[in-house]
């Protein structure tokens, strides 16, 4: 149809109008909170958490000066690094092993290995909580049936931190595996065939050709998992409740405790923790961009 039908050219406001709802919502619920956090972090709190007098960098200084908060940061980093290392290594290994596996088995195994992806953090934590519960948990029952006693999975600080890290690694493995599987599936077959013709063994091919080709996917997985690791909350809340003592307090868990945990609400300090998280995530994201560009 041509001729006299008027065309609906986009007016000046079509674009803005269509984008406006999303933009406005994100301004209110994503950007404004960052500003508000900055405001709250330089003020004290009253008994109900409302901001009171200006305290300057007092809250932020406490993040560095308070030993308890420093160990919270350390715990968070340890958990993030450990879980990321475990999950990424396992995912890359699984994808590489499956690459040359027999066709029928590969589908089944891939399906099984992607099951953790169906778990939410809460479901994964519930699973490991039931596994590691002291004496009534499945692990302790199995050990008892064999006449052994296990360590205090959730009652000793080192084991508790490990339990949270392993739960996180298991839960994140699903996602990491799916990414690596997709990446391996999209590899350019030409260099691989050439290498096979040259007589290169599977693992030489893996090391020399595949891993470099997977670099950006591996980087992506490492970065997203590190960021998730820095945000660990649910696993702590469900598995250990921050305990024993406060040995499994992560950054976000500490934020939650300070603001909503039942003691005196400290919104100023909690906001400072939120800003610290933002900075850490920013640093990790920036590192991804830098490393991603160096090719």
């Amino acid at each position, binding site marked *: 149809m041509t001729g006299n039908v008027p065309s609906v050219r986009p007016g000046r406001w079509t674009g803005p109008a269509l984008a406006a709802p999303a933009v406005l919502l994100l301004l209110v619920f994503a950007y404004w909170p960052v500003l508000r956090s900055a405001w709250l972090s330089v003020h004290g709190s009253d008994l109900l958490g409302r901001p009171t007098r200006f305290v300057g960098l007092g809250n932020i200084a406490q993040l560095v000066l308070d030993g308890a908060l420093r160990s919270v940061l350390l715990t968070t980093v340890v958990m993030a690094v450990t879980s990321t290392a475990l999950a990424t290594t396992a995912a890359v290994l699984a994808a590489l092993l499956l690459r040359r596996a027999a066709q029928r088995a590969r589908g089944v195994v891939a399906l099984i290995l992607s099951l953790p992806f169906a778990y939410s953090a809460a479901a994964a934590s519930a699973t490991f909580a039931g596994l590691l519960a002291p004496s009534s948990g499945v692990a302790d029952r199995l050990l008892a049936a064999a006449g052994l006693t296990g360590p205090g999975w959730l009652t000793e600080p080192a084991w508790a931190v490990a339990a949270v890290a392993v739960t996180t690694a298991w839960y994140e493995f699903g996602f990491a595996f799916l990414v690596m599987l997709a990446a391996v599936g999209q590899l350019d077959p030409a260099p691989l065939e050439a290498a096979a013709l040259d007589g290169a063994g599977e693992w030489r091919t893996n090391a020399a050709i595949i891993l470099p080709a997977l670099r950006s996917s591996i980087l992506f997985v490492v970065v997203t998992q590190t960021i998730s690791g820095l945000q660990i909350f649910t696993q702590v809340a469900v598995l250990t409740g921050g305990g024993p003592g406060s040995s499994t307090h992560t950054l976000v868990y500490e934020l939650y405790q300070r603001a909503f945990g039942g003691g*005196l*609400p400290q919104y100023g300090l909690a906001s400072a923790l939120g800003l610290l998280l933002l900075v850490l995530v920013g640093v990790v994201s920036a590192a991804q961009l830098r490393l991603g560009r160096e090719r």
Partner: protein
Amino acid sequence: MSAPASTPAPTSSHRRPHRHRSLLAALTIGATALTGACATSSGAPSAASTRALASAGPVTITLWHGLGGAAGEAFTKVVQDYNDTNTDQITVNAIYQGSYEDALAKYAAAARDGSTPDVMLTNDITTGYMHDLGQSVPAGDLAAANPGSLDLDQLQPAARNYYTVEDQLLAVPFNTSMPLLYVNTDLLSRAGVDTSTLTTMSGMDAAARRVAQALPGTKGVVQPSAGGWWFEQMTAAAGEAYCSPDNGRTGDGASSVSLTGTTQQQAFATMAGLGRDGVALQVGDDADAALNAFVSGQVAMMFNSSGAIGGLTKAGMQNYTALPLPLSGPEDSSGPLIGGGALWVSGENHSEVQQAASWNLISYLSSAPVQEQFAQASGYVPVNTQVASSSTRQAYLASNPAAAAAASELAEAPVTTATAGCLTGALPTIRKTVLADLSQALAGQGDLAAALAQAEQDATQDVVDYRAQAGK
């Protein structure tokens, strides 16, 4: 010295002068008109409360609590009974909000957006915070405004003492627990210890050492440091105030913590000595481990709350007695602190009718038959003095000597500033601080005096920070 909570205004009509009846009527009508105009008052309720309640239609009130387990079930039943007997007027919606900590966090959140429950059941250490929040109507005022309801004199004086500030009762204690010294009678008799010597800390110390010496492999005593309650208990048993001035009950509240009083330090030193000499069993803050050790005969004496009686009964232990907390200060001014929780009525954003209905519920919950029923089902100690005269109660106590010991300890506790306990909103924080600073020293490791001085400094800083946050 601190006088007991204020008594309600005299209710007997013979006090009213007959010849001024018409003037009084005019004044009352005027007062009713005034209070009717201010529907959402947050100040002290007037004498028209009861009348307002009577003329209002059906009222629904909400109650939040943190009682789980057996106590929670017993509480639910009691509230259900209230609803069943009140079908044409007051209905109570009691909601379990998780632990006491969770419940208080929700309460603070609700205070921000004005959606607090009508009644809040919260634990002892939050008393200072609740008081400073200013959201609640003092129980004393409510009792005065509702003549014929709960007679505050019927509440155990020692329990009222805990919740009283400057002669006014803030909240009504509901589920009360007492600190006890449980002793294994078999082990003590084998070691040749006379239980009548266990009324003092020094007697307890001697007995513990005797047991450890006479029965190798058995420890003398265990005191789980869970929550830091015992530091406060030992201080009250030494007849000294935990915080000053006046345990935080005068002026605008506590401004410092004291851990270095003479008798107080001696009490701490006694426990530390037992730890250092290997006479005391160390379980850290694990109260369950302490209970298990006591049941299995690993330790002859155990400091624990009256709530442990249930655990001991469940474990089937027979050969034990419960004794009151050993004292280290003068008998007339030293004693135990109560534990447990109390009921607070919200005033902000709650009408007089709601407040009156809440008070009606609290009167019911504090009445002798309900306290007796609840205490028996939950293991807490009844807070109403009239319970003691009930024949069913006497029969129960005859077959439950441990419960009898807890009840008589409450009834006989002296009512002084020291035994009122420390009132400050910083108390939960202080407990954690003191526990962290002192747990090693009280187990006998390191320099006790230095640890106490450090703990005192840190705890006082907590109070100072709290005062800043509370805007004092």
